């Protein structure tokens, strides 16, 4: 029953100094909004980078013939992929998989020539896995009549100064080390970061050109849950796959993994920084609020209120203000994240710099429940830490000293 009076007093105190309450709540919500946007964009950037690389290129689990990765020679190919495809197909953790041919070669126009990675794919299947249709800058997503078309990455298109409809000559070596050339028409230019310096062409046409028969270079697997990729890769490694090698994406792109760790570290530092700013803000406001009410607390103690109850009231007041700040911040932060996850921020003006690091210049945020739960815990901890010192300074005073305070 007495607790009811304390709660009532806490609420009345909050409204007694409304402008200060609003200021503190605003400070907390602004910290929270910036933290959520920062975390959402950081994580979104990482997810985009990993997605772009794994989905358009190797998958989250990659199977290749032994020595292909080191030599990149087409003679190290998977001759019969059926048995391993059966295993993959029947695993419920697998979302999808595609088979690809990879070869090194030269792409030339009338004026320019460039080294290129030639990737042969079954376009229909590949689009389902890579969502390449979302990354077409110009042209149509097709290999054209009789598979005589090619899709090229935007960096490559820039370097060659070509556009859709132009002809290019692809030169490479076949399985017998003979030089072979084919003329293809540019059907589309993609801005997928994983394909910036590559070209995509028909898998069957490439198999025919290289004399590979039904052999493939790699099987690229996407899991329903990325977290399963390492376990699944390890399970495949334990099977008798003869001349095949299995990699999960963290082995293939250690830099991406390191970036993920780096971003997590940056996130932690950002959390710590915002946590500190919020704590200092709350501390300042609570300290002033306690100091200017010392006399009131002295009266309460003089007439028999235990210090513990006064401390509870101060903490409760601060937690209410923090909660108001949190709710406002969480709502605005969630709306901002929803907007940023739908529309993102366009950094196309810095295309080259972003592509150099394999990053999508159209940065989109993601939303995780942890953004809300972690920040709530952080704000409550910051609030309690911030009120401890003012409460301690109050505790040191005798009621008689507090009552004399003007």
């Amino acid at each position: 029953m007495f607790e009811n009076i304390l709660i009532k007093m806490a609420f009345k105190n909050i409204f007694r100094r409304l402008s200060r309450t609003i200021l503190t709540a605003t400070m907390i919500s602004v910290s929270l909004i910036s933290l959520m946007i920062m975390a959402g964009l950081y994580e979104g950037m990482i997810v985009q980078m990993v997605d772009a690389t794994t989905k358009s290129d190797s998958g989250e689990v990659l199977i290749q013939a032994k020595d292909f990765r080191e030599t990149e020679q087409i003679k190290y190919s998977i001759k019969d992929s059926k048995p391993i495809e059966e295993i993959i197909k029947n695993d419920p953790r697998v979302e999808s998989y595609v088979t690809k041919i990879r070869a090194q070669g030269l792409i030339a126009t009338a004026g320019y020539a460039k080294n290129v990675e030639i990737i042969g794919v079954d376009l229909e299947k590949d689009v389902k896995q890579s969502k390449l249709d979302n990354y077409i800058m110009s042209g149509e997503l097709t290999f054209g009549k009789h598979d005589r078309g090619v899709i090229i990455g935007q960096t490559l298109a820039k370097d060659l100064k070509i556009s859709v409809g132009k002809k290019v000559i692809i030169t490479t070596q076949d399985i017998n080390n003979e030089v072979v050339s084919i003329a293809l028409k540019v059907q589309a230019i993609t801005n997928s970061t994983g394909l910036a310096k590559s070209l995509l062409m028909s898998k069957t046409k490439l198999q025919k050109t290289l004399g590979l028969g039904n052999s493939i270079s790699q099987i690229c697997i996407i899991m329903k849950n990325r977290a399963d990729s390492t376990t699944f890769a390890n399970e495949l490694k334990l099977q008798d796959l003869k001349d095949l090698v299995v990699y999960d994406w963290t082995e293939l792109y250690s830099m991406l993994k390191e970036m993920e760790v780096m971003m997590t570290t940056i996130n932690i530092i950002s959390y710590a920084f915002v946590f500190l700013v919020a704590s200092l803000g709350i501390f300042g406001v609570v300290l002033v609020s306690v100091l200017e009410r010392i006399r009131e607390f002295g009266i309460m103690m003089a007439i028999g209120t235990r210090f513990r109850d006064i401390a509870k009231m101060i903490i409760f007041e601060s937690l209410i203000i923090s909660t108001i700040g949190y709710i406002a911040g969480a709502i605005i932060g969630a709306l901002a994240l929803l907007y940023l996850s739908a529309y993102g921020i366009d950094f196309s003006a810095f295309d080259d710099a972003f592509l150099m690091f394999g990053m999508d210049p159209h940065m989109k945020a993601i939303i995780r429940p942890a953004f809300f739960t972690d920040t709530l815990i952080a704000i409550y901890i910051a609030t309690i830490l911030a009120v401890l010192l003012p409460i301690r300074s109050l505790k040191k005073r005798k009621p008689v000293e507090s009552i004399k305070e003007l």
Partner: protein
Amino acid sequence: MGFLSIKNVVKTFNTSADIEVKALKGISLEIEKEEFVVISGPSGSGKSTLLNIIGGLDGATEGSVILEEDNVNLLNEKELSIFRRDHIGFIFQAYNLIPVLNVKENIEYIMKLQGFSQKDCDARVAELSRELDISELLDKLPDHISGGQQQRVAVARAVASKPKLILADEPTANLDSVNSEKLMELMRKLNEEEKVTIIFSSHDPAVIQKAKRSIVIRDGQVTKDTINN
């Protein structure tokens, strides 16, 4: 041993310049139940210090203050809170009502601290507000009523939970003569009708003469202890 036994109480304050100031120099007093006592003396004589020590708001440097069985000087912080809550009613010179609570909530505050039901609180508030003529003020905040009214509310708060002892530190100092007179009448009535022991301090001769017993303190020592007729 009487109701309140004060033995050789010494209180020393240390100033910021590390100088010791003796506010009370070995005060001994025996006060019986239902007494109506005034402690008078010039400013700085030690009246408030003595009242603060009796009420457990401050500790004595030496000596003992025993209210019935409780040796106030030996109680820890938690026990002192309970002691003040259950046994003492305070009336301060500056009224010291809780600003965010209305008059009714201020009066019933200590009763709620003690765990009285809302029904009991309501009955007691109604009784006291009638007696003290503050029924019309119950919904008002302390800032919205006059000084004399605030002091009557402070008296109601002090007596609401029927404490053993009421300590009033210069309760009339901020009041005009009419309100001072009224307050003294009220305190005397409470002493006689509710049988509450009251000790108050004052240096106003008109107020001092209302008490039944008058103790004069000068330079931290009792110089006179008389029964008024």
